[in-house]
């Protein structure tokens, strides 16, 4: 039982990241009816931007020292007696990284937002009115453009980036088993859930959120009601790219920065469809479920089975519920 809880925790943590990635795909789909195959590469850019602003920029000559490593006196004193790998040491080293982590996140958000606006303006906007199929395939084309650009700009470096939160193991006992989790992962999970919740609130209570929901409901009616639909599209891409930037930063801290991050987007597609393409709540549910199922499979059956878990699960779910858990059923009229 204790072990079960352990894998449950692991699963929820990876589910949180899946949800954050899926969030971007859903928000673009809801507004524009386009499934963004290049979302993984948007995330890749987010990760590289985070690296640029959190690692490369602080090391530039013109940056003040405290950005690279913030060492106020109280921190030095606090750190002095902490043994290595202890929570205290981890927190201390995190605090001295805080300036560049914040710089990295801010930079990544801004740069990725700019990138998304460019994509929306140069690629998606000219395709307005074409079949959704053409729009989806243009995102496939984007994969090559983004991957090539990343290779050109960052010469495909494999790099390491500072973790978003302090990273030390948390141990506790439950049902007679020793359980643990990493505070860094917990921190990532909290960020993911907070972003998710914030977005839900925005969609529910702000003007632009209502505009997005109206557009998702019915584009032409939204137009008729005076909603600036192209701007809704832009804001959907903005949401996707900024949450993608955070997801990219998290992935880079978890798995190391490399062009392989781009592949994540495609594997999340199954999760999105399982939850229902246009339902945030469904996708959150599906992400958690897949995360937990994958962890359990890894525990009991091993890694080769864990990899196909999302695909088997999505197949089963959409055979029973053709629009995912909470996806809206399309009403067809002849």
């Amino acid at each position, binding site marked *: 039982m204790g*072990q079960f809880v*352990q*894998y449950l*925790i*692991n699963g929820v*943590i*990876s589910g949180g990241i899946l949800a954050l990635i899926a969030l971007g795909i859903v928000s673009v789909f809801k507004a524009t009816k386009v499934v963004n195959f290049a979302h993984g590469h948007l995330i890749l850019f987010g990760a590289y931007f985070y690296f640029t602003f959190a*690692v490369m920029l602080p090391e530039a000559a013109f940056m003040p020292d405290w950005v690279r490593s913030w060492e106020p006196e109280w921190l030095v004193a606090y750190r002095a007696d902490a043994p*290595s*790998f202890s929570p205290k040491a*981890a927190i201390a*080293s995190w605090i001295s990284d805080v300036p560049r982590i914040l710089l990295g996140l801010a930079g990544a958000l801004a740069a990725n937002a700019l990138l998304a606006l460019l994509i929306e303006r140069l690629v998606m906007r000219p395709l307005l009115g074409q079949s959704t199929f053409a729009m989806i395939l243009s995102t496939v084309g984007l994969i090559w453009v983004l*991957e*090539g650009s990343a*290779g050109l700009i960052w*010469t*495909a*470096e*494999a*790099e*390491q*980036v*500072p*973790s978003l939160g302090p*990273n*030390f*193991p948390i141990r506790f006992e439950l049902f007679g088993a020793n359980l*643990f*989790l*990493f505070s860094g*992962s917990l921190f990532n999970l909290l960020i993911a859930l907070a972003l998710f919740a914030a977005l839900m609130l925005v969609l529910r209570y702000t003007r632009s959120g209502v505009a997005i929901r109206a557009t998702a409901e019915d584009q032409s009616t939204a137009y008729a009601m005076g909603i600036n639909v192209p701007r809704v599209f832009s804001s959907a891409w903005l949401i996707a790219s900024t949450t993608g930037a955070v997801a990219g930063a998290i*992935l880079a801290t*978890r*798995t*190391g920065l*490399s*062009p*392989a*991050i*781009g*592949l*994540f987007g495609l594997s999340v597609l199954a999760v999105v469809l399982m939850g229902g393409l246009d339902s945030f709540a469904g996708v959150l549910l599906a992400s958690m479920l897949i995360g937990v199922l*994958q*962890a359990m499979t*890894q*525990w009991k059956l*091993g*890694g*080769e089975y*864990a*990899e196909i878990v999302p695909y088997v699960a999505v197949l089963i779910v959409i055979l029973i519920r053709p629009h995912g858990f909470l996806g809206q059923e399309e009403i067809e009229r002849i």
Partner: protein
Amino acid sequence: MAMKRRTVLKAGAALAAATMAPAIVRAETKQWRVAASLPMTGPFATAGQLVAPAFAEFEQQVNDSGGIGGRPIKVEVEDSGYIPRNALANFQRAMAGGDLHFYFGDSTGFMELVGPTLEGDNAVMMGSTSFASSLANPAERPYQFMAGPTYEDQFEILLKDIADKGGKTVAFVYSDTEFGRDPIEHGRKVAADLGIEVVLEEVTKAEGADIENHVTKLAQANPEYTILQGYVTGVWPQLIGGARAFGLQTQFMGTFWGMEKVIADRVTDQAGPFLDGYQGVMPYRYFYDQEDAPFYQQLGAYKKSINPDFPGYVVTWELEGRLNLELWKLCMNRVIEADKPVTPDNLMAELRAIDNWDSGGFFGQPVDVVDHKIGQGRVYRYSADSKLFTPVSDWIQV
């Protein structure tokens, strides 16, 4: 680079030539041609981009010193995106471009794909990035070789090292790829022979693995030693970091592709001294260990001469590529000295005949080529303080 009209014309003409030139009409060899596929885009772009300079420098260095047998060499590098089918097309295109004297492949998949076609006119001496056991097979793959020990050999070296230290339990953690699985079966057998119990076999994704789960399973199995296989830039540092932070005492070990100092240093810089004590088998000397390595000294001096900012370290992946080229050069020189025609068969015969060769420092002892591979290696340990891998064993022959 602006495309001038002439460039376009030249490209067009070359395009037509590449398309239409029948294989029979080949110009007389004026230079020795070497071609390579490297993964300069795609998921393993990091490795490809880091290896590529070795080829440009080799070309220049050889030509500066008068070429091979008085003729200059030409090195052509092409991107494969790590897709075997693309690499095969690259290879065929290189073949169509005239006489080809050496080819460097970028993956086990490509080597397996091209292997059966290397016969008659299509034969070329061929090295690669891969240490897959199936490629060290003179009977089935008469033209392919590797510049080091196979993954199976590397596993064996590690397991023997564990046995020597009195280790009793080991875990194998490997990626779900051909590369990851290659030595596992052999590893099980060797472990059984040595009386080491394999307490866990954990399959992970090749990139972006779920670290928490793997660390949890490792903690349950609690092996004394853990061998990692099938990773390049990712997973292994995070896995070790996770296990360290968790407080696992298991000794991590790796093989060639997971032993790169550049990656280890970056982890140390950004995440802390997690990799301290990490061990693994490396067929070659690291580049900073130059004292007994005249070749490394020369290479370092050369790099310094063309690039004053050269930081003084060459990644092991580049060294592997370079050693492949050096072996080819050696075979070329020997074939030419013996006044034999430069054919793939003669080159491979010279390769097989390499015996007691002083590699100039790549390996610690003179090496032999047996079964198209070089069965030598050494166990190193990483120190986060000095940021160096230092040897903890003698050179081991397998």
